[in-house]
């Protein structure tokens, strides 16, 4: 196949997000990554729900569907199951995926068809002009909650792990290198990959992730996860995630080679470890792990389904006439 460039994935459609929206950076990062996929454009499909984020497919020069609110994972599951030869991507938002679409998301994760789900999490409903979402912090004042929101938000990483996800990662709209690194691992993963992308909505929830972006706070609060490396962070790397009586904790001034320092193992079979990692940070974003929390191989739904078809077929040619006649006929002369 011809070598593709980022621009090959641009469409003629004018990109209509608000100036400064984090979605632009994500779009550029994804377009920039696509050539690496090594898959012909025509074999790639982007399916989205409804929301600002869900406008994404219009800007990708691949096959695409801008479906309805919350249903993209279900639609994509059908496509991936019928066409395991395709590279199927889902783009969704925190409302689309976790509010109305929660059931499809959690079943997609346990079912593990070969889908890459990009969840643009801006902690707000952008398209409908700023109501709180299932990831909004408690007490958020929005149009629909003038006295502050009451529901405890989801931690999408914890939720996904609780739903038997085989691949779960988190990244940031503005950090193209990290974002593309995560996309790389997600694409390589066989099965459903959930990638939470913290995304700034500069109109209705501006600065939501500044703590992880500003030069002077970023390093103190971002925990970079790299499989096989000890989890150390902070300006001078002296802060670390340590194990203390089972639970994971963050400790300062941890000496070199301290045995308590956790060495990140994204492939751990027991999801308890990844789950514990996901609890290090709360909605305040302090101590936020970034990267791949969990990545384990499990047979994919689409493959198994098609294997059953092949197996059934191996029994020999399907005989329609035989099916229709069945095994109990009589004749009228």
């Amino acid at each position: 196949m011809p070598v593709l460039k980022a621009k090959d994935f641009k469409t003629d459609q004018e990109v209509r997000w608000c100036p400064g929206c984090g979605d632009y950076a994500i779009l550029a990062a994804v377009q920039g990554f696509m050539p690496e996929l090594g898959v012909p454009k025509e074999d790639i499909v982007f399916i989205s729900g409804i929301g600002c984020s869900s406008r994404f497919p219009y800007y990708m020069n691949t096959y695409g569907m801008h479906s309805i609110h919350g249903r993209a994972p279900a639609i994509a599951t059908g496509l991936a199951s019928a066409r395991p030869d395709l590279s199927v991507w889902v783009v969704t938002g925190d409302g689309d995926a976790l509010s109305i679409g929660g059931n499809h998301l959690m079943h997609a994760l346990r079912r593990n068809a070969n889908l890459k789900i990009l969840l643009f999490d801006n902690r707000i409903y952008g398209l409908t002009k700023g109501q709180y979402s299932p990831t909004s912090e408690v007490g958020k004042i929005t149009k629909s909650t003038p006295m502050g929101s009451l529901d405890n938000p989801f931690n999408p990483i914890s939720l996904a792990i609780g739903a038997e996800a085989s691949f779960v990662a988190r990244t940031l709209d503005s950090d193209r290198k990290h974002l593309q690194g995560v996309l790389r691992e997600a694409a390589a993963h066989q099965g459903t990959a959930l990638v939470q992308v913290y995304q700034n909505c500069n109109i209705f929830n501006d600065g939501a992730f500044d703590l992880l972006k500003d030069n002077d706070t970023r390093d103190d609060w971002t925990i970079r996860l790299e499989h096989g490396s000890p989890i150390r962070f902070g300006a001078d790397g002296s802060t670390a995630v340590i194990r203390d009586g089972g639970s994971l904790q963050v400790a300062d001034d941890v000496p070199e080679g301290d045995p308590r320092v956790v060495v990140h193992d994204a492939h751990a079979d027991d999801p308890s470890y990844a789950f514990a990692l996901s609890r290090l940070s709360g909605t305040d974003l302090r101590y936020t792990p970034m990267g791949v929390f969990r990545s384990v191989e499990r047979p994919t739904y689409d493959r198994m389904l098609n294997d059953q078809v092949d197996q059934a077929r191996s029994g020999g040619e399907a005989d329609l006439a035989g099916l229709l006649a069945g095994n109990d006929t009589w004749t009228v002369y």
Partner: protein
Amino acid sequence: NDLSTLPNFPAEIRAPAGTVLGVSSFQLHFADHDIMTPGDAPDVLVAMNPAALKANQGDLPAGATVIVNTDEFTTRSVTKAGYASNPIEDGSLSAFQVQAVPLTSTTVRALAEFDISKKDAERAKNMFALGLLSWMYNRPTEGTITFLEKKFARKPEIAAANVAAFRAGYNYGDTTEAFAVSYEVKPAPLPPGTYRNISGNPALAYGLVAASQLSGLPLFLGAYPITPASDILHELAKHKRFGVRTFQAEDEIAGVGAALGASFGGALGVTTSSGPGISLKSETIGLAVSLELPLVICDIQRGGPSTGLPTKTEQSDLLQVMFGRNGEAPVPVVAAKSPSDCFDTAIEAVRIAVTYRTPVFLLSDGYLANGSEPWQVPSVADLPSLKVDFATEPNGPDGEFLPYLRDPETLARPWAVPGTAGLEHRIGGIEKADKTGSISYDPDNHDFMVRTRQAKVDGIARSLPPLEVDDPTGDARVLALGWGSTYGPIGAACRRVRRAGLPIAQAHLRHVNPFPADLGDVLRRYERVIVPEMNLGQLAMLLRAKYLVDVISYNQVRGLPFRAAELAEVFKGVITDV
């Protein structure tokens, strides 16, 4: 008179004329017309063990109900009875409506509190079975109970136990949504050919498999179980060797969504459900209307509203499937008229879906789904071709691809499936510009697209044959018009009326949306048109609105098929009035 009046209840129930409701008409039929099936065959067989099954299976008409006592179907006893493998599992009973129940153990459990001998408890399994049958053929229970009390008057504990077993069997039918329908078979000698017996759900499933083969499109079913549609999922799940993929989704929305996704990928996307599930699918069906992709939605109707009467039959989803979507979202609707007709109707639904690139509703109901009739097995060669052409080339003036450039005749848009180089495109549920399919908020374009989608569906009428009217004497002044499963009863009623010397014409609609082009003329040809429906007059409303004809709407919403005798009286009344 009632089952319980049988001298003593045998393992094998023979239902004399006029007994078990569903059964009787069935028997009667066989009595007063001659059809090539052994005359006095049992309609229900309760096989207490493999031996009993083996012994009686022979003279069972296909479609009969078989209740097997799974407790007794051990590998040993199965082989002892001379079966190679367990007949319950190896599909050799597929011609029957099989109810596999652990009769003995369940009855014994049900009688745990009674102080009677284990033997007596086990004997009561007959009563459990009778209770189950009473549920299935919805018979009143009082008669049986008093009969039992009388019969065992001298052993009150035994009487109580038998009544308890009878009740337990009855409730078992309710709890597990057990089903039994006997379909009123069209009489008159059948044309020569090879026949089998078939009920509606398998026929529908076979129709879909056949359509998949005829179109070369792999069948993808996205479904969530619901009575009385589940058996289509069960049936299709068996046919993977035909390339059928079945997906039991987390809910109905995911079921139709997955089917739509598969259609986008070039598969024959199908979803099956019943009323409550269909209402959940409506938003996604609206999307399919906007995307203009093929999709077949089967609604096996049951009693409503809400959960309603899951095991009873009704025709009350017609208006839901016509209008149950936001915006102007026209969807073609076809309806099956008999169990075997579910096969042809499924093929027709697929023809419309793939030819016009549109979602299509197929309406069946609990009566068709579970009722059975003899079916002349079609020869595959005689089946229509449904060959589909995917888009392979750009179709635009400047070598671009225009996903909404339409076929001038059908108004269908091109179906370009992922994997086709050069045809990459994006579609969605927001209004689209004519031809290019890109988002458009232009007022005139919207008006145009709304009317075009409607015109596309209306245009299907051009592909339909004229409506067949059965008017043997040719001088009928009254027309009985129906749709769906009322075909049998209306037909039987018309025959009665004619036998009584009164002329009446019968016509039955397979296509409810759009109507056949000549329907208006047909209606106006008769002085009165009567439309019997198992709802409050849904087709009647559509006819009145479209043709301004004052049709008589005759309705029953009893969860049961019409009784031919009753309908005949109604028809006679109308005829004598004109």
